[in-house]
Every structure is written in C-alpha cells, then in structure tokens.
C-alpha cells in the first residue's frame, strides 16, 4: 500500500522539479527578462508545432530557449535573435510572420477584402438611391421579360414607349387594388 502511494506521489515530485528547471535563467534586469518572455512566446517550437518555445518541454525547445538566453546575454537585438532562428529553422519558427512578398496576403489580404466589401456596399447603396421608387433595375428587367415576352427587343429599361409606360402604370395600379 505504501508503495502504491509512493508511485503516485513520486511523479508529482518530479513534475514540480521539471517545472522549476524551466525558470532557472538569470537575467541582468527586468527588461531582458521581459524580452526573453516575449521572444520565447513568439518563436515556435520546430518539433511540437503548436507550441511556442516558452510552452514546449521538448529538448529542442529547451536548447533554443538556452540559445535565446545566451544571445540576450550577449546584448544581441531582438532582430538578430530572430534572424538567427530563421536562418536555421526557416520562416516557420515565426508565430508572427514577417512582412515580405510571400506574406503580404496574410497581413493585408483581410483589409483588401474589407475594401472590396465596402466598395460593393457603396455601389449597391448608390444604385438604390438613383431609383427612389424602390424598383430595382434587375427586378424591372425580370418582370418585364415575364410579363411581355412577345416583344423582347423593347424590354430593356428606358426603352418603354409612352403607351407601354401607361400600360405598366395601369398594371401596377391594378396590383394595388
């Protein structure tokens, strides 16, 4: 029984030690600690792909954390550290992709789509305003085709003769009654 209890408790003890092992890095000041935290959160672990360096317990992530810490100690800039990682593991390690020819669609694509959406909206709104009667051009087109298919050449909007216009008005009046 005692052994059973031990076998449950021992792993707990081990995990506590592992957790502690992660944070044994010493920093000169709070600023470099903060930079370390930010860098390890923005760099992706190459082995366990959905974790960043800060999260991952894989040996490679540990190596890379040590490397980031070493480079911080050597007063290297964030850009230099990120360049170092990209040179070895590729753009893949960046959770925050750089802005270049192959990633501009990621960064600006949503804004382009938003622009297209706004343009379409404006276009529709403007067309509606030009026809305050509320009869959409497309609707007018269709109803005309359905109602009077015998004269297809004259069904286009704006080509109604005076007699046809009068007949249309009569029909519309008839609808209202």
């Amino acid at each position, binding site marked *: 029984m005692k052994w059973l209890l031990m076998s449950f408790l021992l792993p707990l003890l081990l995990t506590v030690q592992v957790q502690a092992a992660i944070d044994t890095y010493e920093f000169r000041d709070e600023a470099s600690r903060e930079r370390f935290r930010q860098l390890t959160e923005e760099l992706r672990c*190459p*082995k366990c*792909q959905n974790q960043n360096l800060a999260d991952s317990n894989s*040996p*490679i992530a540990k*190596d*890379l954390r040590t*490397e980031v810490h070493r480079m911080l100690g050597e007063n290297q800039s964030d850009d230099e550290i990120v360049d170092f990682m*990209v*040179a*070895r*593991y*590729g*753009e*893949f390690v960046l959770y925050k992709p750089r802005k270049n020819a192959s990633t501009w669609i990621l960064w600006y694509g949503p804004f382009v789509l938003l622009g297209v959406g706004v343009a379409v909206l404006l276009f529709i709104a403007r067309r509606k305003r030009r026809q305050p009667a509320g009869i959409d051009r*497309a609707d007018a087109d269709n109803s005309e085709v359905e109602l009077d298919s015998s004269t297809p050449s004259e069904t286009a909007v704006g080509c109604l003769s005076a007699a046809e216009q009068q007949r249309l008005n009569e029909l519309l009046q008839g609808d209202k009654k």
Partner: protein
Amino acid sequence: MRRFVVFIPLVLFFGLGILLWRGLQLDPSELPSALIDKPMPTFSLPSLQTPDKTLTEQDLKFGEPVLLNVWATWCPSCKAEHAQLNRIAEQGVKIVGINYKDDRGKAKVWLEKYLNPYMVNIYDEKGTLGLDLGVYGAPETYVIDAQGVIRYKHVGVVDARVWQQLEAIIAKLNNGEAS
C-alpha cells in the same frame, strides 16, 4: 455582364475549396529546410571514434556527394533505419554521421553491434552543429554535394522508398558535375 457577376461567389467558393482541400493533403510536419542550397555551416568538433581528432566542414568534401546522417542511440527510429544505411554504404555511397547529443560510449557500442556505415562520425555532444543545421529531431539525413553545399534534407527514417529519392538526387548531382 450581369450574368457573370452572379457566378462570382460560386467561382470564389470553388477556388477556396480547392485551396483548402490541397492544404489538407500537405503534411504539416514536413518543414522546408532553411539551409537548402546553402554551404554546410562551419564547425569544429571531435570525431566519435578518435576524440583527439578534430573534424571540420572540410572533412565532408570527398569530391563527390555525401549523405550526412544525424543519429543517436536514444532515438528508436535511428535503429530502424540503420540496416538501410548499411545497405547504402555497401553500394559505395559515402555517409558521414553526426552523433547528436549522445553518449560516446553507448554510440561506440552501437556501431560495433549494428555495423558502421559511416566514413567518419562527428561527435556533437552539445548539439551545436545540430542547431546550426536546424536539426529538430533525429534521424535527419542531408545530401551534401561535392562542393559542400546542402542540397536536400529528409526528416525521418530513411527506408527503401526514401533512399530511391535520395539516390535520384545524388545521381542528378553526379550528372550535373560531369557535364
């Protein structure tokens, strides 16, 4: 004109559909190496078998393409591919080993037990060369051309199928150099 506008959403839908469907076919664990077509990183590390001997990137230049294999005794997949590496070495292809973050004694025993397909073995105890190569998991196998430029990287076990690919790449490099 109006008629075509109606089809735009459908076209967009199919475009996106094909894009995403293709995305599902890709293997996300396969990373393109950042070092392809770059020269082998410089290093200065001891040999596995003779600790006094220092090896550098110059020792990888045999005047012909070589395979560079990252392995370790703690890596089960390395054991799985070892027989294939022995067969490749028998064909006369030169293989250089990087013993990655391993124990020298265990590694030596391993080579005696399972035969040694390597021309030389670089003993990378701290994983520094591995880091410069962008190694993220053993086994990894690189094709290095005669000039010491990295041409290809394979992550995972080298089996008969993978060897066919590597062999084709080596053959291409050899032909390119001959012409």
